[in-house]
């Protein structure tokens, strides 16, 4: 009976664990293997150990790599600046409006990602009212275009991943013991001091989670660059997509995505080491 009971969790985990192992872990291996192959699509790829694929892929696409990190980093920073006060308002000031505001924050998810991005293309189109205002304020470059610039891509990335920044910050503010703010006031701290020395440090885990959840999808994105960008704004995602699906240069494509995965996994594993797996799963208890 006890032996059987000990097997129960494995039975429950089985189907899901197998699915994830077969279609998440195993594919990573094959991507690595594909990255080491030689040959071309028409002549066929031979398995090999062509490590230079990695360095070639990197040196050939340095611009796009750097651009991806700059765009995603800028978008993440702007998203943080927009999200924190909003999350603060929803968590601590909204009262009976709380549920409605939260609902509005996730509402963009209920329309297709692509449609939202295409809607931004309309909003930022050359003759649109928004662009006219920006032109009047002289906030756009000489030729008066917003679309097809890096700015448009960053704006799209910021918009599309903003909820991922808001929600974890909201959660950490919501969980915070507000009596600590009261205590700060009682001890004659100014509002700014209380915020900087009490609220901000306590909600730091939420901020870090938000940064990761925004930056990771943003750095790999290619929809925004494809729809809102122009010739000089392609990101690493665009390169991978084109190498895989258009040029069929699988080894280089696989090498690029492999390097991207390694870079991001490194960051995530460091984060998990510091914050525990619970931080990603939505609770704090389970550390280590």
């Amino acid at each position, binding site marked *: 009976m006890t032996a059987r009971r000990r097997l129960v969790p494995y039975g429950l985990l089985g*189907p*899901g664990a197998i*699915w994830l192992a077969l279609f998440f872990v195993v594919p990573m291996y094959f991507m690595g293997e594909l990255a080491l192959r030689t040959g071309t699509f028409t002549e066929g790829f031979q398995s090999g150990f062509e490590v230079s694929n990695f360095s070639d892929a990197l040196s050939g696409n340095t611009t796009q790599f750097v651009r991806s990190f700059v765009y995603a980093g800028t978008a993440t920073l702007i998203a943080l600046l927009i999200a924190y006060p909003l999350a603060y308002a929803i968590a601590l*000031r909204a009262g009976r409006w709380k549920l409605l505001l939260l609902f509005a924050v996730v509402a963009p998810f209920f*329309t*297709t990602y692509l449609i939202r991005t295409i809607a931004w293309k309309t909003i930022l189109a050359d003759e649109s009212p928004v662009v006219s205002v920006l032109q009047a304020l002289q906030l756009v470059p000489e030729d008066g275009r917003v679309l097809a610039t890096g700015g448009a891509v960053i704006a799209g990335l910021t918009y599309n991943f903003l909820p991922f920044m808001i929600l974890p910050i909201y959660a950490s503010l919501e969980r915070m013991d507000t009596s600590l703010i009261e205590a700060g006031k009682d001890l004659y701290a100014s509002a700014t001091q209380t915020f900087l020395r009490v609220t901000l440090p306590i909600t730091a885990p939420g901020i870090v989670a938000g940064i990761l959840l925004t930056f990771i999808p943003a750095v790999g994105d290619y929809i925004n660059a494809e729809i809102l960008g122009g010739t000089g704004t392609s990101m690493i995602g665009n390169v*991978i997509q084109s190498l895989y699906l258009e040029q069929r240069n699988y080894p280089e494509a696989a090498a690029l995505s492999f390097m991207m995965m390694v870079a991001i996994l490194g960051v995530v594993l460091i984060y998990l080491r510091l914050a525990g797996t619970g931080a990603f799963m939505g609770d704090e208890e389970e550390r280590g």
Partner: protein
Amino acid sequence: MEAATATARHVSDSAPARAWTWLRRNALMIYAGIAVAYMLIPIAIVGLFSFEKGTAQGEYWSDAFGQTAVNDSMIMSLELAALTMVVATAIGTLMALALVRYEFFGRRATNLLIILPMATPEIVIGAALLSLFITYSFDLGFTTLFIAHVMFSISFVVVVVRSRLIGFDRSIEEAAADLGATPFATFRLVTLPLLAPGILAAALLAFALSLDDFVISNFNSGTAVTFPLYIFGASLRGIPVQVNVLATMLFAVTVIAIALVLWQQRRAEQMASVQPEQEV
């Protein structure tokens, strides 16, 4: 600073001064209103465009299903999302049960296995799966899409159901056992109904994730065309207005579904909170 606001409040007889105080006190909520409006702009644009004038106002709504290619892609997306939802929710719920209810060897590894897919950029997941399918010359199509969609939905199902399970009052189950219910009867009559809102929320999430996915699908679709894939292809030539109509319909349906889940959840909470008075 404190003193300044206090005096301002005393002296604020004049209208502008009062307006200024009001503005200062509500600045954060005003900002929240603006920020939320910004988040809703594209949805409003899509809704607005669905009423674009053909020969008559609202023409495309009465002809919402007039584009066969749009319909076909939508049907494929709905089928795929429904299938993904059923399988991912079943598998994910079992995993969540194992993680919350049992102590076992390999727990950390399992947690990692669930977290990593959520922390990997979609393009890497799509590319990796395509590498697997290329290596084994798998035919790309509905099946490979289904495999991929279940794969990326499982983690989200686990997270949602798990959070519901953690807040679960197990004394109700013990009570059922005390009253002579078999473990299976307890599960069916007590655990499952109480978990239902969490499972429902997870199922909806899986459905929505599948319906909306473009990047991973783009890598593994072959000739199959889902709704997002159709939109992407059409966006290069010009999108039929019906796409906006269908997107608006979908938005409305989702909003209603979520409202229902929230309502159900509140009811379940009321049900769970019916407890005998506590004796200290």
